């Protein structure tokens, strides 16, 4: 009873997020719901991919032969590793190892940047070869190939955008950690950043075989 009415009293004074009780479970739920919207955003594109792959199986194969599956595989490993480091950072903060947490997040950011650099080289290589929407190389290609590259740019582009957003998200979280706003008893924000980063990873897990391993 006593403990309880204290809680309620606190509620009475609190307003608009000024002095509120925390609800980590609710915060996590919101993050998951947000991930669903991301999933379905990409879902529309995956559906298009599936449909056109079905319609233009040959064109897709021809187009995919151009892709460098080695770079793709490297990028996959990079993202998987960054996922590991985010997961480890959460485990570290739970154990109150702030230094390790920060190190893991720095490592994650490095991985993210490496991924983007790789993507940059890949894209510029293709653009250099005239392969881009409306580019000269597409003129002589079949419909299937044109659509393959259209989807390739849109999907990896949107994914790259998510990598960037994820990096900024993690950057903010690191500021919070350094200011002890995120601690071993209050780390839902970090957990949410991790969830987001893992989703970015999961999407790549599907993009990789779909665009690079289609021989």
């Amino acid at each position, binding site marked *: *009873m006593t403990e309880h*009415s204290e809680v309620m009293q606190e509620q009475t004074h609190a307003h608009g*997020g000024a002095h509120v009780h925390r609800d980590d479970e*609710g915060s996590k739920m*919101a993050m998951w719901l947000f991930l669903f*919207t991301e999933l*379905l*955003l990409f879902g529309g594109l995956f559906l298009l991919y599936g449909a056109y792959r079905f319609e233009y199986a040959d064109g897709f194969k021809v187009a995919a032969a151009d892709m460098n599956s080695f770079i793709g595989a490297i990028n996959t490993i990079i993202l998987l590793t960054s996922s590991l480091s985010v997961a480890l950072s959460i485990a570290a903060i739970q154990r109150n190892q702030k230094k390790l947490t920060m190190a893991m997040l720095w490592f994650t950011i490095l991985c993210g940047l490496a991924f983007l650099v790789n993507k940059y080289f890949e894209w510029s290589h293709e653009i250099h070869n005239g392969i881009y929407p409306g580019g000269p190389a597409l003129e002589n290609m079949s*419909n299937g190939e*044109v659509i393959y590259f259209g989807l390739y740019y849109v999907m990896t582009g949107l994914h790259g955008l998510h990598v960037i957003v994820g990096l900024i998200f993690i950057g903010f979280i690191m500021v919070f950690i350094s200011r002890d706003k995120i601690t071993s008893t209050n780390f839902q924000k970090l957990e949410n950043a991790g969830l987001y980063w893992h989703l970015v990873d999961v999407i790549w897990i599907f993009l990789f075989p779909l665009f690079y391993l289609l021989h």
Partner: protein
Amino acid sequence: MANGTLANEVSYLEYQGKHKGIMGWLLSVDHKRIGLMYLMAILIFFFVAMTLGVLMRLEMLTPGETIMKPSTYNSVFTLHGVIMVFLFIIPAIPAVFGNFMLPIQIGAKDVAFPRLNLFSWYLYMVGAVLAVFSLFVGEGPADTGWTFYVPYSIRSAQNVTLTTMAAFVLGFSSILTGLNFVVTIHRLRAPGMTWFRMPLFVWGLYATSWIQVLATPVIGITLALIMLERFMGIGVFDPALGGDPILYQHLFWIYSHPAVYIMILPAMGVVSEILPTFSRKDIFGYKQIAISSLGIALIGYLVWGHHMFVSGMSDTSRIVFSLLTFLVAIPTGVKIFNWVATLYKASIKFSAPLYYVLGFIFIFSIGGLTGLVLGALATDIHVTDTYFVVAHFHYVMFGGMGIMFFATMHYWFPKVFGKMYNEKIAVIACTIIIIGFNVLYFPFFIMGYMGMPRRYYDYLPQFEGWHILSTVGSWILVSGIVFMFGNLFYGLLKGPKAAVNPWGGTTLEWKVPSPPPLENFDEIPVVTGGPYVHDKPTYIMHPGKEGINTNGGPKTINQEAAL
């Protein structure tokens, strides 16, 4: 505690916080103030779109050019549709009255994420500004219809990009509101408020929110692809590059069919609030009504193909979608029958909100039942893309959700503003609206079956009489609506003060002052029974004072509530 009580005597309308004057609204994270800000914005766009509707009717008064050129007409119906769908009917009830009433009805002080809530409002405004902007720049607003079908939307030189961008942004506003509501309903219910003690409006919002979260992203990406297609020609929707226009239609309707249930479910929720209040009796079949909301939402995901029966979709697909379409009628019927049964052996207090609800049941049934004509393959192939469809969706959208929006404004008017309107005038206005509505839209059914295609600037002579009749109906409707808004507006300025519970409602919002104080409750109430019980209290408003240990007794209930 003394401090808290004091703060609670000031209504949310008068409260002066950190920011004063207009900033106190624009920066407020209070769910009630945000709800009112939505109301203002939404009403403005509603008026704009209605005016466009009346202009279309004027154009159709005579064959050939009456007041505008064909290209203007095309932009007008596009803008009418886009504004009505994305700026009015989808946000109207959830964002205005959901925001306002949901926390109060479940016994919470605010939504789960108040700042996110404000952010959604700003997103809404950005989307709205983009839509308005498209009027004035470049070649003028989109002329594609609200469906943005490719390849026309890729080729049109009008401002399709801006308009789709507007819809895109509005989609995200809608998603965030839905997300906020789902978490609020899961996490913030008062002690003892189990799932089956929630008001049915909350159930309606819950189902709606799930559609918002799980369907809206699909239209987001689809519209983004149209923009990309226009800028860069990526080919996914452009048949010249091998793209498949029918695939676009799939993606569009994957969202836009579930969206029609975003429009109607909150309205149905309000029906379930108003009926027991004015019947002075528990609602009939509470659980069935609650579950049918989820049922409608769920089946709603499976029927989008009924918009594509003549698109060249495979025959198998047409048959499957037709069959699935008919299944939506079942949970909707369950609701209708339970509502009517609620009136049985009740003690009915006739009043404007109830009158609107009766109008709703009649008009929405017409709309829904003609939806079945559209769901059946043979008949749809004849009447699709004709005025029959236009009639159907005005009956369900305007006659269903629109009329319920009016009902909602009347029902919660005293609570929101703490004032009363003139009951007699409200009833007269409602009568005019119902008559005008049917004169305006019923001829559409007849024309449609005769073969009058929709989105036609001009028409063949055999349709002239019906078009004239319908235009006359639009004038009757306009007068009714002006009358209704005038009455509400007068009530707002000059109306008598409203009591805490003028209708004898049983849900929690009728237990707090009108208008509610800033934090809704000075103490979180404890719930002990169902939402529509009239003969005994089912809430303990001051559990602290009465020494109720909310932690002790209904422990099992708490656990269930925490899910």
